């Protein structure tokens, strides 16, 4: 739809020859890629292609076994996970991950608080009024205003996914990483989520990991295809769709 924008030249994230091994198993081998600022880049591939491993390297879930990762020109390889949020990289999890017993509002508020106050044991948290307001704004943005005071665990699956995106946005990321944001969603919820992602991408860079290729062809500026831990192909949705190797390993199987 809005895919054929002219390629943005500025690079926000870059991986140089990153690989990850678990014991003797090579999950990911020598991936070098660049991610343009302001674009939606999707990482796709069949099951076991190494998508989630690559995603975890990008968001700091674990460090690469080799190679390095550069964010906004700065080497961030090996930084602990909690530092990533402060640098401007936020992620959503593949399996829904919220604070179940806290209210929807508190889920986002505590996410916002992580950037401004983590070790203050004395001032009342209610004193941080601007966070309460910002949390309300984010709730409205992800469409959860109605559920403001409900415990997160009582939300429907699709709402929990939306809440998670709200929490990721709470750290004011310049780079938003989403791991299969539509996993387990109904077609209806999927469409809402895709619209939300396109909306969010207007103001920040989005990297998306997705199993279903069809979903991302329409919204991505660029697509990376992984297969058996290797970078199989890279390009615009058009180029990827016509790539023979991709067709063989991916589109040929009628599962997408």
């Amino acid at each position, binding site marked *: 739809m809005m895919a054929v924008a002219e390629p943005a030249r500025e690079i926000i994230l870059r991986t140089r020859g990153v690989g990850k091994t678990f014991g003797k198993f090579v999950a990911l081998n020598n991936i070098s890629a660049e991610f343009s600022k302001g674009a939606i880049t999707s990482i796709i591939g069949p099951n076991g292609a190494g998508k989630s491993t690559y995603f975890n390297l990008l*968001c700091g879930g674990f460090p690469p076994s080799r190679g390095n990762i550069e964010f906004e020109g700065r080497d961030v390889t090996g930084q*602990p*996970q*909690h*530092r*990533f*949020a*402060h640098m401007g990289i*936020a*992620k959503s*999890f593949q399996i829904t*991950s*919220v*604070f*179940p*017993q*806290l209210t929807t509002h*508190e889920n986002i*508020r*505590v*996410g916002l*608080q*992580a*950037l401004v*106050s*983590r*070790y*203050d*044991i*004395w*001032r*009342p*948290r*209610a004193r*941080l009024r601007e966070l309460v307001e910002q949390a*309300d704004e984010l709730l*409205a943005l992800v469409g959860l*205003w*109605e559920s*403001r*005071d409900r415990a997160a665990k009582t939300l429907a699956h699709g709402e929990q996914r939306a809440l998670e995106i709200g*929490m*990721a946005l*709470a*750290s004011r990321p310049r780079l938003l990483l989403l791991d299969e944001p539509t996993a387990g969603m109904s077609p209806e919820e999927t469409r809402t989520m895709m619209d939300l992602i396109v909306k969010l991408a207007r103001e920040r860079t989005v990297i998306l990991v997705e199993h279903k290729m069809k979903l991302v062809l329409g919204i991505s500026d660029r697509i990376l295809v992984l297969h058996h831990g290797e970078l199989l192909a890279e390009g615009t949705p058009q180029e990827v769709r016509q790539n023979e190797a991709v067709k063989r390993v991916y589109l040929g199987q009628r599962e997408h």
Partner: protein
Amino acid sequence: MTEATESIKQSQTSAVGWYEFATRHRASLAAAAILIFPLIMPFTALAVNILIYGLYALGFNLVFGYLGLLSFGHAALFGTGAYLCGIAVVHFDWPWYAAIAAGVFGGLLIALLIGVLAIRTRGIYFAMVTMALSQCIYYVFYQAVDWTGGENGLRGINVRTIDLFGLQIDFINPLVRYYAIAAFVIAALFVMSRILASPFGAAIEAVRENEMRARASGYDVTLTRLLTFVLSGGFCGLAGALQALHLSIVPIEMLHYETSGLVVMIALLGGMGTFFGPMIGAAVYLVLENLVSVWTVHWQLIVGAIFIACVLFFPAGIWGTLIGRGRR
């Protein structure tokens, strides 16, 4: 958006309003309960014990109920607080306030020591590592006979009067002693309430609720856990120091792992993760112990059965069940 806020406000029932009022003023309400407690509790010495064990459980509950880590080594924090306070009085002749400060410091220090070594472990491993480390502390105090009296305990912590800006407070009178100790416990309740309501309190809850998410949001989970454990040590150290002054002796049993187990029981009985639960748990446990032990020497059998019944039928604990949900 303001309309929605209004409708939410209007839809609040009076029950919710009362609950919120009680939560906001939880420390004041708890203080009031402590102040009138001796009027309904004729055995003042027992009431003092309840205060002290309640404070010990309050500190423990910060780690257990709010942070979500089961420690089996809290006796080390409680006992070290007691020993340092006692040593300050017996060997150095320090005044009462300095001795209490020494106890709090002891709790903080030992919590830091145990915390640094144990905090990266999870679940049952955390319980085991804290227990093992607290046993190490036990033996250190057990062996240092010249300082601690070893097996016999540290005797001779005789504080008969408390000098408060020239005012001589009679620490022998049971009721006066109760209120002197209550002053510290109430102060601790206010501090605890503030910690729980602070941004750090929110971080503690976030870490308990979902460690991975907290980390992704930008919280340093390990450091948050360590700080919480150290704060808990401060409360337990204060409880220990008060116990030393109250008993005028520090028995070595205070450091024993049974004392670690006891506080788990008290917290579960009262309601883990509730503000006033630890106090209720301490009251129920100690009153039961006293009543049943008059009747039979096998009191532990009876108390144990009641404990099991509580855990099975009131998993949120007595206080947690009373306030309707097992939180706050």
